[in-house]
Every structure is written in structure tokens, then in C-alpha cells.
């Protein structure tokens, strides 16, 4: 990822790269707009980036999160027909998608 001298350190190339990772397509105008807007948010976050917090552990959750298990007893799942009814395309009780392969970004 390329660096930049803009506030927040986010360049047009960064924005275009991130859009590819997030599977979004941006117009030229959107690249321009989002570069400025995201830079302004990251510039605000500079206060946090500058803190020395090496003595603290990161918290992913406000409460300790542990694996939750239940007895392994069979029970009904969601109705298959009802679930598939919400899908854009279905074939033989499965989700149908276009060709996959050879297209990884």
C-alpha cells in the first residue's frame, strides 16, 4: 500500500486498493470524495494513534467472551423453503451463483 503526505496519510491509491478489498467499485468522483473524507476521520484518530498504551491489553469486547456450548441434541433448523425463497437465485435446493474461479482480485 502506498504512503502519502495527505492528512491522515491516506492516498487515492489507498482508497482504490481498499475498495477492491471491500468489493466496491468507485467512480473517479467518489475516489476523490472518499479520500478527503476518510483522511479527515483518520486525522482525528491521530490523537489515539499517538498515545503510548503499550502497557495495556487490547479489549475486543466489553465483557469476557467465552465459548458457549449447548447439549448436542438434534432440533429443527430454519425451514429450507423459507430460507431459499429469500435468495436471488436457486437451483435444486441450493443457492445458485455465477461462475467462480480465475477471478480473484
Amino acid at each position, binding site marked *: *500500500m502506498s504512503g502519502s503526505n495527505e492528512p491522515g496519510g491516506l492516498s487515492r491509491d489507498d482508497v482504490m486498493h*481498499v475498495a477492491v478489498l471491500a468489493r*466496491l467499485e468507485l467512480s473517479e468522483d467518489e475516489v476523490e470524495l472518499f479520500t478527503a473524507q476518510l483522511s479527515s476521520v483518520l486525522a482525528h484518530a491521530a490523537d489515539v494513534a499517538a498515545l503510548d498504551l503499550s502497557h495495556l491489553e487490547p479489549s475486543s469486547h466489553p*465483557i469476557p467472551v467465552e465459548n458457549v456450548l*449447548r447439549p448436542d441434541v438434534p432440533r429443527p433448523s*430454519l425451514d429450507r423453503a423459507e430460507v431459499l425463497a429469500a435468495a436471488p437465485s436457486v437451483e435444486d435446493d441450493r443457492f445458485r451463483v*455465477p*461462475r467462480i474461479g480465475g477471478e480473484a482480485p
Partner: protein
Amino acid sequence: MSTARAIAAAVRSGERSAREVTEAALADVDARDDTIHAFLTVLRDEALAEADAVDATVAAGGDPGPLAGVPIALKDNLCTRGIVTTCGSKILDGWRPPYDATVVELLRRAGGVALGKTNMDEFAMGSSTENSAFGPTRNPHDTDKVPGGSSGGSAAAVAAGFAALSLGSDTGGSIRQPAALCGVVGMKPTYGRVSRYGLVAFASSLDQIGPFARTVEDAALLYDVMAGHDPLDSTSLPVDAPSTLETLEHGVEGIRVGVCGDLIDGCAPDVRARVQQAAEALSAAGAKVEEVSVPEFAFGLSAYYLIAPAEASSNLARYDGVRYGLRIDAEDAATMNTATRTAGFGDEVKRRIMLGTYALSAGYYDAYYAQAQRVRTLVMQAFDRAYTSFDVLLGATAPSTAFGIGELVDDPMAMYMNDICTIPSNLAGHPAVSVPFGTGDDGLPIGVQVLAPALAEALLLRVARVLESAAPTGGSQ
């Protein structure tokens, strides 16, 4: 519309029918919601059928429950089986979930009547409800102003009197801020206290469902119905949730209240004056009121706007045009994914997905995401320190009264500043409530915020109840 308590009492005793209450609510929505636009979907036939079932129970000598016949509005990110659930997004337009959220099931079991699904900022990302793909909601107190957000439709539905109660979700203030701007009570419970099964995820370590009401008692009534463990939500706390209604009138004698300048000083003068007045009211009611400084709160906003987008970028990866919602067809799957997401998401959602993707990407993870999580630890420790000397904290909910439609929508950072007083409680997973407390210089509602430690909802609502009874009834002084 009467309070939920009054409606439920009248319906349970047979004095009023749930059908009559529901018909009146639907007629009111028909007459006035073209202007307010609180609802995305009105559940006409479904609500009448639920009302009839409540009346049938009463006729048979049964008790439909504590919410008997009460019209309730649901934020449109709560799954309702067979009923369109959009999250304010084109990408889910027309989606009918195959199951009900646990809270929806609990309301129904308590006799509540789901009146409709309310407008919201797309995927709950916003503070004004202007990011809805289906047009903004207007503030019932002044239709040129925003209702706040992201649960703006739910706040407006209660403020306008369409529903006695509504449900919202609060990730960074999305219940409390619109409650403040619309002049209603809005509460975010402790993280894990209310099941999130069937709440469409935005930022999973922060999201929490909570009530809107016109009175603190009604908010307590709705919270009590929803609180408790749910095996369908692995983050649901396996502990009992004591009734908040039972202790609601216990007052604040001897309660230690910390007036937190860090949640006040950056606000408009009329907001600051109201918080000061609220502090005096608590003192007059017997609380021990002192000032407290928690400077770490200042870092909450930056941390939040890294953590929430990071989690959102992961949660919203599921909108790929495969299992539900929009699909824009293409030759291959990756092109289809990209075309679908590009067409289906609005600008704010794209911004947050990109911000989160960036914060999680190689080379930036430690500097932004991990650092934000350390700030979260810092904020949690700061709360713990404050709560060694105080039982609750008092601050503002929002920095100003309602702003104009269109005023901040082109400046994301200015919009994000709306959440500055509400974010700390989300980072720490603590409960907090906004209580209407008079109006500002412009005559629009102001909310004051009470914050409490984890699981202290009963105390939180006791304090809120005292503030409600002491609230100025009008005027800016």
C-alpha cells in the same frame, strides 16, 4: 396516545379493546406519517390480528401480559418473520426474514402489538436518519430538523404519539441521541442484557437493543419484558435481570452522582445549562452530587470510529448477492459481488466499510485497530475508577438540540461528533439513558444522560425517574 402502562391496564381490565387502540394508532399514522416518515412499513393487517388475539385472551378471562394491546414500533434492523426488513438499505429491500428476533417474540408474548417497522440510517450508521435509502425521517417537534439517528424513526414514532413504545439499537448512541433530539426517553441496556438474536449486526462488540418511551416508567416496563438470558445469543449474559419497575420510585437519597465535565464541556451553552440544572435537581432530591473528571473519554470517539467500522467491514461482507437481498447479475461471482455491493450500499456504509477495511489491513492493524482496542481498555479502566467514588455519572446526551436536515450530511466528521457523549458507554458495555430535560434556546428538546456501571439498570432508571419528575416543563430558562 396514552402511556403504555395506561393502555395495558385498560386493555387487561376490558375497559378498552386492543383493536380500538390499534385502529386509532393506525388512523393516526395514516393521517400524519406522510410528513414525519417514521415508518418504512406499517403492519396494518398483522397489527389488527395481534390486537384481536389480545382481546380474545381478555374475553376468555386470561391475561395477555404487561404490554397488553400496546402499539409498539420496531426499528427495521430487527428481524420479523415474513415481514420486510430492510435496515434502511437498498441491498435488503424486499427481504423477508425466516425468523423473528427474540425481542419481537418477547413483546408478542407480553401482549404487545407490532405497529410497524421504523426508518433508520442505513445499517444503523448515522446520527440523523438521513442515511436511509428510503428518505429521511423528520423531527416531530420541527419538521425541518432531523430526529437524530440512527434509530430516528423509532424516536419519532414515540415523540409523534404514533406508538406508545418503540425499539431501537444503540451501537454508539443510536438510541440515546435520537431520544434526546425528539424529547423522549431512550435507554441502552448493559451489553448482553437483552438478546440480540435477530438484530442485524453492525458492530457486534457494541450493538445493543433498547427501549424508547415517553415516560421512564414505560421504558422500565419495556426493558423488564426484554431483559434476561437467551440461549440463542452467545453474548447474552446468563444472569437474572431484576425488575426495574419494582424499585423505580425508590428515589436518589444518598446516591453518589458524578457530574462529568468531559461529557458536558464541549456542548452548546443551553445544553450545558440544562445538565447543570439536572445536577441541582438530583442534589435537591437527596443525592450527593460532585464533579468528576474522566479525561480518557476524550479518546472514545476516535477509538469508536476505528472499532465500529472494522467490525462493520467484517459483518457486512455477508451482503454478497448470494443468499438474500439484492443481486446485480454478472458473468462471474466476484464481479457479481462487487456490482451488487456497489449498487446496494449508500455512501456512508461504503465509507465505513472502507475505513474498517483500511484499519484492519496489513501494516495498519496495530496502529489503528489494536490501538483503538487498547483505548477501549483505557476507557473501561477510567469508568472503573470513577465508579469507586460514584454510583452513577451525569452528562449531556447530545452536544446540541436537533440540527437541520441537510446541515451535516456532507461532513462525516462533524456528524460523528454527535456521538461524543454517548460512545464511552458503548465501549465499556455499560447501561445509559437519555431523559428529556426541558428545551434549548430554540425551543427544541434537550436530553440529559445518566450512565451507570454494568448491570445497574435498576439504579439507572431510578435516577432517570427523579430527573423526569424534576424536568422543566417548557421555556429555555
